[in-house]
Each structure stands twice: as structure tokens, then as C-alpha cells.
């Protein structure tokens, strides 16, 4: 019933809208551009592509990022991005952004202002977390919740809660602020083997997207994610076959034997080097 859909009437000041989509209590998924194993970015890329790439709003960068010039990464000039996408068919909002460099409180509140503006049903964050598991193991997903009610609602999808005492991640800060507003919010933290943490862990991206799809109920095709995950597994199997040292260390992880710091660094360097060599 289109008449029951929410039509924007007030725009948060730091947001620049190019259109005003109509959505009915959508879910908002937040994906950062850099994280462990590129999980957040990978899920964001997948969703932005699957949703048809309809960006309708961006947060103006001037208050939150240095804008005196541009950073060059891998020969390309970059510029901070903070964009909202929508998919009316799946009733979904997606926010993809670099992490703000300053005024994080105002930035995150701008995201939540928009969430409230669209009367979102729930907010979800997705991030990678470094783990000592080998890549051949299933990626476990830990949940962080803004309150007990949302934890109960998601207990079948996210039965294991994260434990943490330390500096809060941007996603944790967002979830906490959402909780203060009475918004339902949950964070998905997906394990990434330490030796894959500096590149995209396609298996973790697939696990995250699959779990999130189960929670939100979208109808996107995931063959491309499956293909990339299979390609990664194949590549790693080939590396193990090619380099017995790599194989021995991964095998020790599979047997539950920890590697010392030097061994971890060596394994990571060997695998990253091999990935670079094989393109």
C-alpha cells in the first residue's frame, strides 16, 4: 500500500538528497570502506550492485573529512564517500562510507537522523574481526546488540554475542547511539583468518551476506559471491600445494595448535606475497 509508505518531509542538514525514495519501515545496513578482511566493504559492494546502485543521498564531507586535497591510493586519487542507496523492492537502505576523521558523534547522528526519518525497522552493521582460525573452517559470526529485545529477536541468526572491553569501533559507537534513541540495531562481526585480514576474505564476505540476507530477507542472487569464495579456496589450496611451509602452518592451525608471533607474520607475508604474485 503506497499510501502507508513514509515520504520524507524533513532533511537532515548535513545530508544532500538527489531524490526522495519511498520505503516502508526499511532495514538500514551500514558498510564501511575499510575493515578487517574487507568484509564490510565487500558486503557493501555486493548490496550496492545488487540494489542497482541507486544512491539518493550523501553526507557532505567538509565537517567530517580533511578536504584540503586528495589521497592517492594504488595510483588513483580518492575522495571520502558517504552515500545512501536504496532498493524499494527489498525495502532496503544501504549506507556506504569511509570512516569519518572528525566529529564522529555528529556524523553518526546524521546517519541515525536519516534512519529515523525513514522509520527504519532495524539498523545493521557488518565488520570483519581477526581470528586464529584457518581459512578452511566456517567463519563464525558474533553479534553485538543495542538492547536485549533485538538480541532476543535475532537469537536464531546470531546466537553468540561478542565480548569486548576496549576502544570502541565505529560500528559499536553507532549501535550504542542507536540504542540511546530506542532504535533496534545489531552488529555482525565475522571471523577472518589473520593471514587474510589485509585483503578481501571472499569466504567471510559470502558468510556475512548470506547471514544478513537471512535476517533481512532480500532476494538477491549470490552466485558471484559463491564464485569468488570458491576461487579464493582454490587459490589457497594451490598455495598450500606449492609451498609446504605454508601448508604445514595452516595444518597446525587446523589441528588447533597456535602459531607464535613470528610464525603468524611469516605465514601472513607468504600468503599475501603469493596472492600478489598470482594477481
Amino acid at each position, binding site marked *: 500500500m503506497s499510501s502507508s509508505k513514509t515520504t520524507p518531509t524533513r532533511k537532515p542538514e548535513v545530508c544532500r538528497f538527489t531524490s526522495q525514495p519511498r520505503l516502508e519501515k526499511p532495514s538500514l545496513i551500514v558498510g564501511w570502506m575499510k575493515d578487517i578482511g574487507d568484509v564490510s566493504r565487500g558486503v557493501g559492494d555486493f548490496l550496492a550492485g545488487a540494489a542497482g546502485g541507486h544512491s539518493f543521498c550523501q553526507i557532505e564531507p567538509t565537517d567530517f573529512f580533511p578536504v584540503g586535497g586528495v589521497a592517492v591510493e594504488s595510483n588513483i586519487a580518492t575522495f571520502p564517500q558517504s552515500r545512501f542507496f536504496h532498493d524499494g523492492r527489498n525495502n532496503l537502505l544501504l549506507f556506504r562510507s569511509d570512516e569519518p576523521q*572528525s*566529529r*564522529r*558523534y*555528529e556524523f553518526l547522528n546524521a546517519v541515525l537522523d536519516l534512519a529515523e526519518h525513514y522509520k527504519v525497522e532495524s539498523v545493521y552493521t557488518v565488520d570483519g574481526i581477526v581470528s586464529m582460525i584457518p581459512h578452511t573452517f566456517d567463519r563464525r559470526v*558474533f*553479534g*553485538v*546488540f*543495542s*538492547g*536485549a529485545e533485538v*538480541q532476543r529477536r535475532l537469537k536464531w541468526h*546470531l546466537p*553468540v*554475542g*561478542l*565480548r*569486548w*572491553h*576496549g*576502544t*570502541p569501533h565505529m560500528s*559499536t*559507537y553507532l*549501535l*550504542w*547511539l542507536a*540504542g540511546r534513541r530506542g532504535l533496534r540495531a545489531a552488529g555482525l562481526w565475522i571471523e577472518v583468518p589473520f593471514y587474510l585480514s589485509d585483503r578481501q576474505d571472499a569466504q567471510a564476505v559470502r558468510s556475512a551476506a548470506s547471514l544478513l540476507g537471512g535476517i533481512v530477507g532480500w532476494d538477491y542472487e549470490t552466485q558471484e559471491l559463491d564464485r569468488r569464495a570458491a576461487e579464493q579456496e582454490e587459490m589457497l589450496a594451490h598455495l598450500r600445494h606449492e609451498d609446504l611451509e605454508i601448508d604445514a602452518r595452516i595444518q597446525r592451525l587446523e589441528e588447533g595448535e597456535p602459531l607464535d608471533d613470528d610464525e603468524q607474520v611469516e605465514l601472513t607475508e607468504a600468503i599475501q606475497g603469493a596472492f600478489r604474485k598470482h594477481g
Partner: protein
Amino acid sequence: MGIRLYYEPNLKQPIMICGWSGIGKVGLVAINTMRRLAKAEPFGEIEPEGFFEPSRALIVNGLIEDMRFPATRFYAFHGSTQDAVFLVGEQQPSDPHKTYEMAEMVLDVADMLGCRRIYTAGAGVTTIHHTNKPKVWAVPNSLDLIPEIREYRNTILMSETRDRQGEGTITGLNGLLLGVARSRDVEAICLMGEVPYYLQGAPWPYPKASISVLEVLGEILHVPLDLRELQETAEKVEENIDQVLDALVTADELPEQVREEMEILRHPRRADLGPITEAEQKDILEHIDELFKDNSDKEA
């Protein structure tokens, strides 16, 4: 971002005394010690979100149980002759606009409680030696306050310091609060305990300067303060400083001129530090700061 009062204290013509974290944590240590010794009761705070980044999160079984921010808390003190409000700020905002906003909020609380005067406490960086007793520099926001300041013990005006001729800058909230108070026609005085210039980048507090500030504030409030515990801490800090200087002077790569200056710093009897040139100050600071940095890296 707002003011949260747990209750509204009933105070009679109070003065407000503020201490924030800054160089040598002089103000923070002084006012926190004072509110503790005076058994002042917390009655409110400035909500930290928006002013500061969260410093710690506690997540238990997936639930965010706590998000810790640096606190800016108000305490009420009922004295026999003078009531007071203490403000203890664990951190200062890094954004100048937010610093101004916080100054306005503090003065809103002062106004609401009928505070007749504001004091701020901080550090005055100068060429004093760490074995000497720090003086207190006082800067008022009105000429009328100068005769009163002249009566304070161990206290001098900026014009009486060695090289400032009454001019200078008070950075952060200690200074800004004076200015904003002036624009509201509220009397305010900043009290700064002297800190040796070569310790301004040190990661540890400089309690000796806090003690000097506390001695002045104790008299203003007519409260006897037992500062023995702080004295003991000051002695320990002094021992640490001596160790740092000993370590520096034996470092092979030290230029001869800096080594000579270090030798002077190591021997209190010869410790008339001034005047020294800005270039000399810079040289010594660079070497000492480097050592502090090395030590903090090792600790990290």
C-alpha cells in the same frame, strides 16, 4: 550535549573552581584533590557525547553494557565561611567551537547556582627548575581584582614573571572561561602553577605545581588541606625527573651544548636557569621530549 544535574544543590553565594586536564595535569590534579579532601558531593555533569570520543566500550555477551567518555563533573561544597562548586574535567574538547560551547555551559551552571566568581587552575610554563617551589601566576579578567590577587601567597601577576611583561596566552578552557565570563560580567581568575619548560611534554603529572595552586585556593576557601599524600607523589615524580636527566646526560649522541644545559639541570645548586635563549630551550625540549616518547613507546 547538555547539562545533567543529579540534583540542584543549595549553596550560598558560591565560588566556582574549575580544573581541566592540561600541561602537567596541574589543574586537574589540584581540583580533584581539593574536591576529594573537602568531601564535596557530585551533583551534575556536562554530557560528554559530542564533546569527546568514547574511550572504552564494555560489551558482555553481545550487549553494549557501557560506553565510557571523559567526564566533566560538578561537585558541591558547603564551607563554614564559603560555599563552592568544583568542576573536574578529565579532558578538554579538541575542537575550538566545542571548547567555547563547553565554556558557555559551565557558565550557565555557575549562573544558575548564583556563583559570584570563577577560578580556573592550570600550568604556567617557565624557566623554573624542578627542585624549586613553583610560584602561582594569577590572571584576572578585571583590573579590580588585582589588589586582591596581590594578597595571595606565593602568587605573582604576569607582569612580574621573568620574561612576559604582563603579556601571554592562556590556552584552552582555563583561558577561554575567563574571557566568556568577562563577556557575561562575571569575575574570574586563572591560577597557574609554574611548570619547568623542559617538562611540559612529560607524560606524568607535575604535582608540585598543583600543591602551589592548592595552597592559594585553600586560603581563598578557608579550608585547611592535608597535602601530605600529594607531597609524597611530588617527591616520587621529582626522583623520576632526576632519573630521566641522568639517562639523557650519558647519551652519546647528545650535542655538547645540550649536555652542558642538562648538567645545569642535574645540579640544583647551580640551577639558575635564566635567561636562556629560545634556541637553547628548543634544543633541550627536543631531546627530553624524544626520551619521553621512547619511554612511552616502551610502555605501550
